[in-house]
Each structure stands twice: as structure tokens, then as C-alpha cells.
């Protein structure tokens, strides 16, 4: 009888890209729920919109590249990218901006660089950065004001109109907490700033819960071995070091707690910096990579023009990843010293 010649190993684990991406998406669910609870339907609508667009573009581009379509869709990588972008942009962002972002992420960043696994940059963050540069107004003023006793949320239908028709919903939108704090900290003290209802009673009305949900999802991923602890811990560590050094006085600069619990810190640390394709690979490399992002986040937030610099921090470190990889090779069994750098 003729046998197929299959080489070892003959058993493989039950791991797959689909499974990994699926787990990432699953880990995002608690945060999506929290976002919806505090900031309304905008996130859900954006998510659906982004995912549909992403799948659409993925199909088109795989058709054009003459690749098996189902195979490409099945890996859920496009879905993951779309979800991440949808959670990172403001909830009332006009629909066309979301579509443009997804188009850019899927077609340009992912497929034009060779498809899954070949993109040097994180597609979601590249798209985010593009939107922020191209449409700064839309990207900074369409944040939803969190639910409080005095502040109600926009209904589902109204949210739809807001997103698709750009109707005026001024009373429901505003800037992020980080933005507000940053712009007021020069004149006001911490107490005075936090009088603003958007800060709520705890840290940043609603945001702290969202951040905690991201954290929860991240821990799930570490437990599931989808990611290792190295990147998130070092991102947070880098940010901590910088904020302790420079933000110990909350009256003169954004407070440490805001750095961690507001904005996209947790999303970035657990879901974006850990994007395998564009990050450093060895454990040591991930540490350098993460610390770099942590430090840069602080730098961009504090001294840059934008309230949140996560996207830029990640993109910048993406640049460095190959370089980091070469200098952080692990020590191989039997070696006295790891072979590092470009020469033996």
C-alpha cells in the first residue's frame, strides 16, 4: 500500500491561527460591553461596521491576489484588526472615516506588504494614526460623554444617524479625559480639573472600568498562552517609570492613575503591543520593545500635540522590532553566550 510520506512530528497540537485570533476577539468582549454600557451604542455599531468592511476588503483583496478566500477569512485576523480599530476610535466617528481606516489597514498595511504575517506595522494602529492625522477634528471631538446620573446616553437609532449622517449631537460628545486634563492642567489643580463631570467619582468616569475589562481580557490571553506577560508588563512598566519620574505631581501634569486607567493604555498594552506580527519576538526582545512603547506613550501624551500617543508609540517601536530581534536572541542550549547582532 502506498502511504503518504509525512515527516515528523506526526502529531500536532490543536492550536490554530483561527483559535488564537478567536481568543483575542473573545477577550475584547468584556471591554466592548463596558464601553457600550458607559458610552453608548457607538462602539457596537462601529465594531459591526468595521468588521463587515474588513471582511469585505479582505475578500476583494484575496480575490485580486488569487488566494483561497475562505482560508483567508477563516483565520479571523481581519476581524481582529477591525475590532481593535473599532474599539480604539471615538464612538461617534463618521462611518466613512471608519471605512477609510479599515481600507487602509487591510489593503495597504496588511496585504500590500504580503498578507498575514508580513506586515511590518500593526494595521489597526497604522489606520488609527492615519485617521488622526487626516481627520483630526473628527478623531478628537466625537468621543461620547460617559453615562452619569445627570448625563443620559444617545439611543441606538440616534447613534446610527449620528454616525451615518453626522447629525449634531454636541451635548453627547466631547474630548477624552486625557485631553481635558492635559489642556487644563496648566491653569488648574487636580481637584479643580476633576470637578468636570467626565472624571466621575473614581478616576475617569467609566474609563476605569473599561480599562479593567481590557486587563481582564489580557490576563485571559496570558492564561491561554496566546500572549506572554513580557510585552504588557514591560509596556506598563515603561509607562510607570516615566509617570513616576515626571507625573508625581498631579497638579502640574496628568496623574499616574489617569495614565493607566484612562485612554487606550490597557487596550494597547494587552492587545496592540502584543500583536505578534509586528512586535519583537524573543522574550527579552519583547521586554525592550514593551518598555520602549511605555516610555513613548508618556512622551507623546505629555509633550506631543495629541492627547493619546499610543498609536505613534507602537508604530515607532514596530520600526525597531527587527533590530531588537537581532540583538536579543536567546542563548541557545550549550552556548556560553547568545549569538547576537548581525555577525557570528
Amino acid at each position, binding site marked *: 500500500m502506498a*502511504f503518504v*510520506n509525512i515527516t*515528523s512530528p*506526526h502529531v500536532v497540537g490543536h492550536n490554530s491561527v483561527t483559535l*488564537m485570533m478567536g481568543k483575542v476577539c473573545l477577550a475584547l468582549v468584556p471591554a466592548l460591553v463596558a464601553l457600550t454600557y458607559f458610552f453608548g451604542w457607538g462602539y457596537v455599531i462601529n465594531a459591526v461596521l468595521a468588521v463587515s468592511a474588513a471582511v469585505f476588503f479582505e475578500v476583494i483583496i484575496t480575490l485580486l491576489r488569487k488566494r483561497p478566500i475562505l482560508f483567508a477569512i477563516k483565520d479571523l485576523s481581519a476581524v481582529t484588526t477591525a475590532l481593535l480599530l473599532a474599539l480604539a476610535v471615538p464612538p461617534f466617528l463618521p462611518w466613512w472615516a471608519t471605512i477609510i481606516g479599515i481600507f487602509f489597514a487591510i489593503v495597504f498595511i496588511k496585504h500590500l506588504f504580503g498578507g498575514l504575517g508580513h506586515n511590518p506595522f500593526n494595521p489597526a494602529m497604522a489606520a488609527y494614526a492615519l485617521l488622526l492625522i487626516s481627520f483630526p477634528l473628527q478623531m478628537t471631538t466625537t468621543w461620547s460623554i460617559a453615562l452619569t446620573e445627570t448625563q443620559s446616553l444617545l439611543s441606538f437609532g440616534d447613534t446610527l444617524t449620528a454616525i451615518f449622517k453626522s447629525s449634531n449631537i454636541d451635548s453627547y460628545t466631547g474630548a477624552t479625559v486625557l485631553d481635558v486634563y492635559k489642556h487644563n492642567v496648566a491653569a488648574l489643580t487636580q481637584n479643580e480639573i476633576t470637578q468636570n463631570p467626565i472624571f466621575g467619582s473614581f478616576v475617569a468616569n467609566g474609563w476605569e472600568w473599561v480599562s479593567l475589562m481590557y486587563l481582564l481580557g489580557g490576563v485571559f490571553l496570558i492564561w491561554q*498562552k496566546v500572549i506572554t506577560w513580557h510585552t504588557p508588563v514591560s509596556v506598563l512598566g515603561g509607562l510607570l517609570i516615566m509617570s513616576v519620574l515626571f507625573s508625581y505631581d498631579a497638579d502640574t501634569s496628568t496623574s499616574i492613575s489617569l495614565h493607566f486607567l484612562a485612554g487606550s493604555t490597557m487596550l494597547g498594552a494587552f492587545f496592540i503591543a502584543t500583536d505578534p506580527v509586528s512586535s519583537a519576538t524573543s522574550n527579552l526582545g519583547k521586554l525592550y520593545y514593551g518598555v520602549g512603547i511605555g516610555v513613548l506613550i508618556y512622551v507623546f501624551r505629555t509633550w506631543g500635540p495629541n492627547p493619546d500617543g499610543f498609536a505613534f508609540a507602537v508604530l515607532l517601536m514596530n520600526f525597531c522590532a527587527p533590530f531588537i530581534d537581532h540583538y536579543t*536572541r536567546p542563548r541557545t542550549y*550549550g552556548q556560553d553566550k547568545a549569538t547576537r547582532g548581525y555577525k557570528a
Partner: protein
Amino acid sequence: MSELNNTNQQFYALPGGVHPPENKAQSNQQPIQAGPIPDELVLPLSQHIGAPSKVIVEIGQKVLKGELIARNDGFISANIHAPTSGTISAIEQRPIVHPSSMDAMCIIIEPDHYDTWTNRSPILDFKTLTNAQLVEKIQQAGIIGMGGAGFPTHVKYPTKTDNIDTLIINATECEPYITADDRLMRERADGIIKGIEICQQILSPKQVFIGIEDNKPEAVKALEAAVLKSESNNISVRVFPTKYPSGGEKQLVYILTGKEVPKGGLPSQVGIVCQNIGTIYAIYDAVMNDNALISRVTTVTGDAGGELGNYEILIGTPINALLSHVKWNEKSAQRVIIGGPMMGFTAQNLSAPLVKNANCLLVPKKKELAKQNPANPCIRCGQCEQVCPAGLLPQQLHWYAKNDDFEKAKLANLADCIECGACSFVCPSQIPLVQFYRYAKGKIREEDRAHAEAERAKARFEARQARLDIVAAEKAEKRKIRAEKAARSAKAKKTGTVPDADLIAKARAKIEAGKAANSSIVAPIIDLVSLEQTLEKAKTKVITTKKRIEDSKVSAPEMIDALEIALGKFVDNANKAQITFDEAKKAGTNTAQIVDPKTTAITNADNFECIESLTAKANKAQDKLEKAKQRLADAKENTPEKVEMLTTSLEKFSQKAIDTQAQLKAFTSKANSNTKASEQVVNQKEVEQVDVEQLQNAYDLAKQKHEKALVRLDNAKQDKPHLVDGLEKNVSAFLKKSEELKKHLDQAVANDPQALEKQKNVAKQKLEKATKKLENILQKLEDAKANKPDLVPAFEKTVILMQTQFEKAKAAVTALENSPITVQSELNLSQPEMIVEVLETVEELQPQYDQALQKYEKALVRLDNAKQDKPHLVDGLEKNVSAFLKKSEDLKIKLDQALSNDPQAKQKQRVILEANAQKAQKKLDVMLSKLEDAKANNPDLIPAFEKSVKTLQTKLDKANAQLKEEA
């Protein structure tokens, strides 16, 4: 009874690793059963790493169980025994178990089903045996590593093992499905411990660890019980958590000792010997029961495997024989895997035999093992890195391998990948990573080999170049020295210190030279034989090592590095041997050539001709032999059916070569004794009939030597005062010799009526030679002027030298033609009183006088020079001058006498003088034209020419003055 060694739980955690489903329960429940005696047993000659074994049986021969049928070929090789009694039915190419499904030479046994044992001599106490005897037994039994690679076990047990402190017994069996070792431990723990004790005696390690995973509690229990009974008290069973691949040798070393085997090295470098538990049992069986390795326990498992369990199969059992024995479910089987699911490979041909290291036959059903999905691209998730036990970055290796970027792959330590498959196991993209690594490793090996080959070729070329350069330099040096010597000897001659020489000594020296050369022709030829052998051996080693590397590529990737290093060494050796051989050969031929002309003159020329032709014959025979060997090797690879024929002819050739060499030896020794005999003949001084010609030559040589010695002495006086004494002795010795020779020469001349004639002949010959040489060199000079202006000065110097020589020779001839006595005067300037009254004519006297005068003048010049910078020479030179003066005065007197006696004398003198003047004029003209030339083309030669012109001018003036005077 030893103290209880508690099961030690201490271990170092394996980095990385995975937990594939174990699937051990299917096969580890039943005791080990006997395997079938199949209809035929197929025993590949290469079941191990190393040289294939050599067949020592014939087709049709009856063999008994346990009888040796193939012998190890070299140290890294293994014996093969008949696994049961029967008949050798064939020795041929058969498919073997090999990832690339290849055929190989196998011995086929047709069992007689009586299973009759050969004679065995079991022992009761191994302690009565020495270490060497124990290792010998292991080697005899053909034991190889039964856990994987199949490295011959005795190689791990050198008789001198002072640096081994830990013996590690690998009882891990970390691959899923396999339970052969598990069952072996449960059932035969006592034998295993005995085996360990044997190894302990050989290695005397400080500690013995039995490394075992915690998924085999029964085996652990059985081992512990056996350890309790053991007399040895440093065996400990170390249990550690189950994790794949903790059974990898390197990994186990780390888990148990925390040490790492150095990159590319062996465990013994960190004082560790690692041994598989199955091998240990085989050692026990071999040493105690005198059972060769003819069977092994193999697991049959997998859902389509039929009666699953462990079977003690005969080595050489074809896969399908075992499978039908266990009633496998052929239809539902998806494939047959030899080995475990993580590192085993798919069997391509089920008629291939199971060999010494086949520990498992895995026959999964279609759905049992996950089918390989089309791979996604690598998403750089890093999961592979987390599980790699070798500390590699599998995904980078994959990237490099995929892009054929082998340099980078090497940099990322691809070579350290143990191909465990853990990375593939976890890869979410389900990339067959190991396949990429194997591919890249193969490519790198190929490249390295090509590179090494190129390097070696380069080294060879450079070595050759260096050799040639040295030879050239030596030649140039010799030429220079010769030129200097010639110059000095010319000088020395003119200084008048030309000594006499001893004919016999000279002859003896000649003979001695001949003898030395003669005996040295024998030595190299004898050498050649042994060198040839060394070379052959080295070559074979290289070939076998290459083969081994090929083999281990598949079966023992971790050996490849070590083997490759070995290969490098072997190749070096072979090259060295080749070079030495070539050189020896060349030297041999050279000697023969050198010897020939030297000795023929004195001794039996025939012998040497014989030697030469014999050497040529021997060389030819060797050539043929080599070619035959080459053909045989080729045939072995391509046309096995021709091997036998070629072997016979090879034998013939080698016989011939040996014969020729023997003849040659005989002849050379004969020639040698002949030489001796003729030496004796010459030694008899009273032999009068010594040839004048020979004597003349000998005398000339002795003179030359004396001159050389003088020159050396002069030099030494200046810068090596400590050598002066010795050199002075030399000089006097040479002087004595040449004096003696001179005496003999004189005698001979006196005795031999034709002596003078002969002397004349010699002189004439010399003249001819000198003329030829001069012509030659002039020709060359012309050439050089045309093509190589930078060589012109050198040639010009030579020309001058040659001219002097030529003139001297001419003078000698003239002198001899005129009178035997004159030549004496020419040869013995220090004894001018020997000139007696002869009837000299004016014609003869005039040139003589002129010459003497010239010499006198030259001597004066030299004296002046010496006064300035070589004061120690002044005395001698002064004597010279006075001698010359005297001579010329004498001649003058004679000339005057002759003139007065001869009525026509004046006339004659005038003619001569006129001729002289004309000659001088001519010379001057030539020189002037040359000067013109030089002015146009070679400005740097102008001064030299100008000087010549001046001297010539003076001569001309003188000649004219004389002429006038006479007039």
C-alpha cells in the same frame, strides 16, 4: 546490600517543551511477547553510525543463532550476528528503513525455524573481567545505541576513562505511544541494574542517575527495588515531570545535572556518559549471557495496529512480517511510522526490516493523528519560541530557511535544533517547521562541504605553490653560489695558491656520493609502500566518514557535527599523506635520476639502469593498483556485480606491485654492493692503470674544492672567527688531497704513453665546453638585450666570467699542444723552477711572456686592493706577485735568448706584436661601438663600458709602444 538510595526528586526544569497526548496505555499493559520468526530476516550492513560491517559469510552458508555474520569495519562500526539459525540466502541490495526510502546492502537469512544457538559461554561474575575485556565483549556483541541514533556503544567506553563523573541512564521514553523501555524496566529491572554495574566498573563514575519521567510509576518501582538489591550504592533513580522532549540526550543531561553539553560537543566533555536503558540491558545480556544483540523490544501501537503491545523481535524482521504477526488492520491504517509520533518517520516500504534501534511501530488510523492542514503563514506569535527546548527562535529559523538565507540561519544556531518537533506541535499556523530545518541543515551541510572542499583544494594548491617556490628559490640560491664560487675560484687560481689534489680521495668522494644516493633510493621506495598504505587508509576513512554523515543526517542529526569535525581531520590526514606520498615518490625518482650519471662512471651502470626501469615499473604497478582501487570503489557504488571481478584484479595488481618492489629492492642492494666493490677497487692505490682522464677530472674537482674552502676560510676570517680553525683544517685537507691527486696524475702521465694525448683531450673538451657556454650566454645576452633589459647586467657579468674561463681553457690547450711541461707551468704556477730548458720558439714564448706579464700586473692590482681592505691576504699576494714577476722575467730572458738564437726571431716577434696590436684595436673598436649602444639604450652600463674602453686603450697603447720599440 547497599543502602537505600531514595528516589531523588531533584531535577532542573527543562526549558520549553510540550505535552502531546501520551497514548501509552494502549501498549504498556501486556508483558513483552516473543516476536515472530519470519520467513526471511533482512540484516542491513549499516544499522549503526559508522562504517558498514564487512560480510564474513557466503551465500548458502548455514549459520547458527548468535553467529557472527558481518564484522565491524574499523572502530566506529558494529558486528552483526545471525538472529536465528538458518541459511544465508542472499547478500544484496534491499529497501531499508530510511526517511529517503533507499536500498542498501543486506544479508538475507532464511530461518530454519529450529532457532539453534551457537556456543555461548555465560559468566556468573563480571568482576573477574578487566575493563578491556568488558568493552571487548560489548564490541563483540555488536551493541549500538538503541534509543535513536545507533552509535556503536563500545565507542563510548574507552578503556581509559578517568574524567567521567556521571553516568546517565536514559529511561525517559518521552515520546508518546512508545512503551518498550517502560515494559523492559518493569520486567527486567535486575538485568538493567546489572548492566549499570558493568558500566560502572568500566567508567567508575561518581554517580549514576537513572532519569525517568513520572508517567511510568511501575517502572520506577521496579527499578528502585532492583537498585535496593544492588551492591552499588551510587545509583539513584531520578523521577521528573513528564514533558516532551526531556528524553533528548542534551535535555536529559541538563535536567539531571544542570550542565549543558557544549555546543557541537559530546556529553563526555562535561564528564558525562549517557546511555539508553535498552542499551544497558543489551550490555548486561552480552556480558553475562554472552548473547549478541540479535533481538530487541519493539512497541507495536496505534489504533490500526491489531494486537498492541511490546514484542521482542529478531533484528531484521521485516515490518510487514511483524504487522501481520500482530494482525494489523491494514485497511484502516493511515500510515506506518517507525519510531514515535514526534520524531519518527513514515515507512515507505513495508518489506524493509526493523533494525537494532527500531523502538516502535506506530500504525495510526486515519483520524488518529491530526492530519496536516495547509499551513498558514507564520504570524510570529512566538509560541514556538516558548516551547523550544534548545533555546532557539524557531520562527526566525523558519523564515531564514524559507528564504534560503542560510548564513542567517547558521547565525541563529540552526545546527543546535534537535528536530524535536515541539515547535511544529504548537505552531498555530501549523507550519511543518522541522521540515524546513531539515532542508536548511541539509543545504548548509552541502554548502559547507563544498566550501571545505574548495578550501582544501586551495590549501593543496598553496602548499604545492610553496613547495615549488622553495625549490625555485633553492635553485636560484645554488646558481648564485655556483656563480660566486666560479668567480672566486677563478680569482683563487690566479692568486697562485692552486693546490694539488688527491685522486683516490676524489674518487672515493664520488663513490660515496653515489652510495649515499644509492641507498637513499632504497629507503624512499620502501617508504613509498608504507606511505601508500597510510594514504589508502586515510582515504578510506574519509569515505566512510562521509557515508556516515549521510547516514546520520537522517538517523542521528546530533552526531553530524562531531562527524563533520572528524571528517575534516580525516581529510587533512589524507591530504597530508598524499603530499608526503607524492614527495616521497618524487624524491625516489629524483634520486634515481641523480644517482644514475654519478655512479655509472665508476660502478656497474647496468644495475642502475635496472633500478631505474624497476622503479618505473613499481610506480606503474602502483598506479595501476590505485586505479584498480578507484574502479573498485566506483563499482561498489554503481555496479556491484563487478565488484568481485575487480577485487580479484585488484589483488593481482597489488601482488604485482609488491613483487616489483621486492625486485627493485633486490636490485638496489645489489647495486649497492657493486658500488662498494668498485670502491674497493679504486681504493687499491697500486692499481696503476687508473685512467688519466679520470685523474685529471678528479684533480680538477679537488682543486675546485680547495679553492672553495679557501674562499670560505677568507669569509670566515672576516665574520665568523670561531669557524676559522675548522676551515683551515679543511683547506689543508683539500690541499693534501689535491696534492696527492696531482702526484698520481703525474705518475699516470709518466706511465701512460698516451697520457699527454689524453690530457690534451680533456683540455680540449673543456675548451669546447667553455666555448659552447660562452656562445650560449652571448646568445642569451642578446636576447636579454632585446627583451629583458633588466637582466642584461647579470648576463654581462656571466659573459665576462665565461670569457675568462674560455680564455683559460684555451690557454691550457695551447700550452698542452706545445709541450707537456708547459701545462705544468700553467697548472703549477707556484713552481716556476720546474720550467726547464726546452726549445722554445719565439712564437711560443712571446704569448707566454705576454700572459705572464698580464698576470703579474693583475696580481699587483689585487695586491694593492688587498692592502686596502684585506691585510691578511697581503702576504700571500706578495708572494704571488714576486712569483709572477720572476716568471715573467724568466720568460723575458728566454724570449730574449730565443730572439737572439733565432735569426728570424725579430721578424716573428714583430708579426706577433702586430697581431697583438691589431687584436687590441679590434677589441677597442667593438667596445667603443658597445659603449655607443649603451649610451643610447642602457645608460647604467656606460661606466662599465667606459672602464673597459680605457683598459683596452691602454693595452693598445702598450702593444703599439712595444711594436715601436721593436721597430
